[in-house]
Structures are given as C-alpha cells and as structure tokens.
C-alpha cells in the first residue's frame, strides 16, 4: 500500500543524502574517534565536520555543541545542570504544555526535591501568559525552560523576547527547540539563549541522536559521567554514525528552510482550508499565525481520534491524535486541555505534520479519505444529529 506520511512531528524519514553520508561509517570506517591511529582519526575528522555543521545550523561555536542520545537526554541534562549550578535556588519555571521530557522532570523535582515550580499557563490559542511568566521570575529562580514550538499544535512561544528578559534578570534560559528546528531560523547568539535542545530524527537524521547547545562559560555538570568524550560533558563512546548523519541533516535543514516556509506552508494551508470547508463542526487548535508552517491540529466535533486514525490507517495515511485513547491515558492531551479546547472537539483532534517530501496530490487524497471517515463515525455517534453536536 502507498503510504502518505503526515506525522513528521513524531518522526521523519532519514533523508537519502543523510543515509549516504552515514553508510561508510556503518561499514569499513568503524574506528573510535578517540584512538591514537589514523584509522580512528579519520572518523574524528568527519565528526568535527558534523559538529561544525550543527553549530552553523544554530549559529553556535562547535565547542558549544554536546551530542546526546536523544531530545529527552538533552532536556534532562539542561535542567539537571542548571539546578546543580545553582543549588541554593529552589524555584524553576516552565509552561503547562511542555513535552514530558521537561514536564515530568519538573514534576519530579517538585515532588522529591521540594522545588517550587511555576507552570505558566497558556490561553485558548496556546499562547503563553507572558505577564505571569515575567512576574514569576525572582532571585530564587534557577532556570526557565520553555519549548520553542509545541509538538501538538505547532504554536510558537516568543523565545527571543523571553531569552532577552531572562538575560536581563540574570536567570538561566533553556529552550527545547526540537520541533522548531528546520522550520524557523534559529540563532542562539542573537537570541541570547543559554541552552537549547535538538533531536536528530525530527529533522531527517536517524533516531537516537540529540544535541544540547550549552553557551560558553556556563558551568555544565554532566548527566552521564565517564570518559573524556564531548570535553567531559557527556561520557560514552560517540554515536559516530548518527553524529555524521545529523551533521548532514543540519546542512540540509538550513537549505530547506525556505521550502518549508513556502511550499510546505502552502500545502498545510491548503489541507486546512479544504478540511474546514468540507467538514462542518471542525476547528483548528492553536493560534493561526504564530504557528509552525508544517503543523495542523484540527478537531472534529462528536467523534473520537483513535477511530479516525485507524480508519485513515487503512488508506495508508499516517497522522496522530491528541486523544486519550491512543496514548493509554484517559484524559485528552494535556496540551489541548491546557488550552481549554472543548471536550466535544478535543477527543476528535488530529494532528497532520508535513515535511517537504509531501505533495499536493497527497493532500487531496487525505481530504478525499477523511470526509467519509468523519461522516461514518458521526452516523454512529450519539452526539451528532442533523449536522451538529447534540
């Protein structure tokens, strides 16, 4: 069956160019970059090039790049390091729509280490309450950690403005830029960001590789203690193959930034407009403007997300949902609940996240498939009658 992949906020296809760059290092070029022989050193040289490419992608210095195993490790390391650097400060700030990699870690610090946590709320459009955020910053604040763009809705926070404010107040600022990367330009120097997380598999590199950018001068404490790798900031033999792949992926992502903001945005807008037109009782979740160009979170009244996804799956269409039933939890997504999306559409919310590999033809197939799926489920639903919710 032909697969239409519109779940790129979950993971992405490894780009052919990335795979090609990696293949030799799976095979004959297996050396350890730390070794004292030319055979290992050639891997080290290639890894240095990758580090430079990653640094260029976010306008950092290569020494400020730490390779990790995933986005979660990057997020955890940043927070862990911040509270270690300022053990006397017992207040930490984040939002209430973060990824579990930040959210759960904060909750644990609150529960087990007695940290006072400010979870800054969002409004109906998913936008941050900036007044509350700024007013909550104090001398006791160890770190502010906020996502640049939300994985479920694509809504973006004004990270540059917040970083500036954090700098003024002398508070460490970390951003999880995992969804933003490759979709909007990122300049850590200009923005004055202290730490930033990236994940390879969201930008057409393989799974199992992440990055933590750490601004020069910050006293970083490693989460993984071991060898001298990553200048003592992350022990463990480097995942050379994936690092090399990620370097290539960052180079491509820079080149593709324009395509994502033109072609991909157009496809997303086309899908959005047509679905809203053709399916009554549908609504977009999140601010329409301050949103990633590739993401559409759309709710359908009186139907449930898992059912929609499984019916789309039969047509080879891959998307995801914010519904409870797909995740094993019972509440709909914490992001949609934080935005106070009404239950009638929250349970039936579907996320389409595109990449530059998608085509208009694919959007048309999705639209054609989705209309009868929603109809079939509404014909079955006790909450839908005569074209509206009852």
């Amino acid at each position, binding site marked *: 069956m032909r697969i239409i992949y519109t779940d790129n906020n979950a993971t992405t296809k490894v780009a052919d160019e990335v795979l090609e760059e990696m293949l030799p290092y799976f095979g004959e070029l297996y050396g350890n970059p730390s070794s004292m022989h030319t055979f290992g050193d050639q891997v080290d040289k290639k890894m240095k090039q990758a580090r430079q490419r990653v640094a260029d992608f976010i306008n950092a210095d290569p020494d400020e790049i730490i390779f990790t195993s995933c986005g979660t490790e990057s997020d955890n390391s940043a927070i862990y390091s911040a509270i270690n650097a300022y053990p006397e400060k017992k207040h930490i700030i984040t939002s209430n729509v973060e990824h579990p990699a930040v959210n759960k870690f904060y909750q644990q610090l609150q529960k087990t280490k007695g940290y006072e946590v400010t979870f800054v709320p969002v409004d109906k459009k998913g936008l941050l309450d900036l007044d509350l955020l700024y007013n909550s910053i104090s001398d006791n604040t160890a770190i502010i950690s906020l996502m640049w763009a939300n994985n479920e809705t694509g809504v973006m926070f004004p990270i540059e403005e917040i970083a500036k404010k954090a700098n003024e107040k002398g508070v460490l600022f970390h951003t999880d830029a995992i969804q933003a990367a490759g979709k909007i330009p990122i300049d850590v120097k200009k923005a004055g960001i202290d730490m930033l997380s990236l994940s390879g598999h969201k930008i057409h590199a393989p799974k199992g590789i992440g990055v933590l950018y750490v601004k020069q001068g910050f006293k970083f404490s490693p989460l993984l203690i071991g060898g001298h790798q990553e200048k003592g900031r992350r022990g463990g033999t480097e995942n050379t193959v994936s690092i090399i792949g990620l370097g290539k992926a960052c180079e491509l992502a820079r080149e593709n930034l324009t395509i994502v903001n033109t072609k991909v945005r157009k496809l997303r807008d086309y899908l959005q407009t047509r679905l809203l037109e053709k399916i009554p009782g549908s609504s977009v979740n999140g601010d329409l403007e301050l949103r990633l160009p590739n993401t559409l979170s759309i709710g359908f009244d009186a139907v449930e997300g898992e*059912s929609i996804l499984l019916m789309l799956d039969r047509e080879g269409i891959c998307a995801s949902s914010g519904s*409870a039933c797909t995740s094993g939890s019972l509440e709909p997504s914490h992001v949609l609940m934080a935005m106070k999306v009404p239950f009638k559409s929250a*349970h039936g919310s579907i996320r389409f996240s595109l990449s530059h590999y998608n085509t208009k033809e694919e959007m048309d197939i999705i639209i054609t498939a989705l209309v009868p799926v929603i109809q079939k489920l509404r014909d079955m*639903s006790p909450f839908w009658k005569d074209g509206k919710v009852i």
Partner: protein
Amino acid sequence: MWDYTDKVKDHFLNPRNVGELEGANAIGESGSLNCGDALKLFLKVNENERIVDATFMTFGCASAVASSSALTEIIKGMTLDDAAKLTNDDISDYLGGLPKAKMHCSVMGQSALKKAIADYRGVQILAKPGNLVCECFEVTDLEIIDVVKANGITTTEIVTDYLKAGGGCGQCLDRIEEILESVKAEGKV
C-alpha cells in the same frame, strides 16, 4: 498501536446494528462526551421479555465501537433475565479479548445494558449508589468494590483499566488504594 484482535477490528470497521432503533422500548446510556466514550443502546423487547432487536450508537475508540457492536449481537434473542447476568468479560471474550487499558469499553457496554433493562422494567436508577470517589469519571466506591471483587483486582492501575477511575487528575488514587486494601482485608480478593 493497540494490539486488537481480528474480531475487534472487524466489529470496528463493520459494526453490526448501528443507529437508532425504531420502536425501541428500552434505552440505556453510559459514558459522556467529556469522558471520551459513550454508548446509547436501543432494545426492542417482546411481551415474553425477550430482546428481539438491539442497536447502538457509540462515540469512542475502536474498542468502544467493537464492544457495542458485540454487545448487540450477544443479547439479541436473550431474555432480559439472561441479559441481566451478562458481564463485561462476556463482551471481551466474544471479541477474543481486549487490551487491558481498554477493559472499560466492555464495562461501558454492560452498564448501558443494565440501564436499558431498568428502563424497560420502569425501575428508576436515580443516583449512583455509594460515595463518589473519582470526580473526573464519576465513579463511586460501591462500583469500585463490585468490579474489584468480580475480577479479583489487586492494583489501582487495573481499577483504572476497568472503570477509568483515577485515570484523570489522579487525586483519588490514594482513596482507590484504601478501597483495595479494605476489600483485601475482607479476604475477597
């Protein structure tokens, strides 16, 4: 992805007996839009108290639809007395089993059936008996005790799988734990 049996998939994609039933003389509803799943069951019962037809309308995930569809197939031709003895396990077994976290879908079927039977017999179920434990999903202590005893449940997670109780804000998990302990102390599990 959930590990659904072929039977669950079949009843989800080709649900039997969907829609309102004309001439229904018993209706039972369970769940709500807020909860994320709901079932409205329609029965036609003859003068001998036999279910001659049954249909459903369901909002929910694949296992909720499949459980509803299975329920209508099982009860057609049954007397109300026999139908009243139906358990959620009967629904789950008919489908070749449900993932643990989806057991509440079969409980929803059983609950709607109970209400439809009460509706036919003119018995009013006014308020749920017992004290409210889970506010998110409106589950009482007596409901929890029933399900714990009937299924030999020993952990709060499994209570959540069956009743959803504790699966929302989680504030009642300690209370559910206490109930489990008290049932255990009675030696019923």
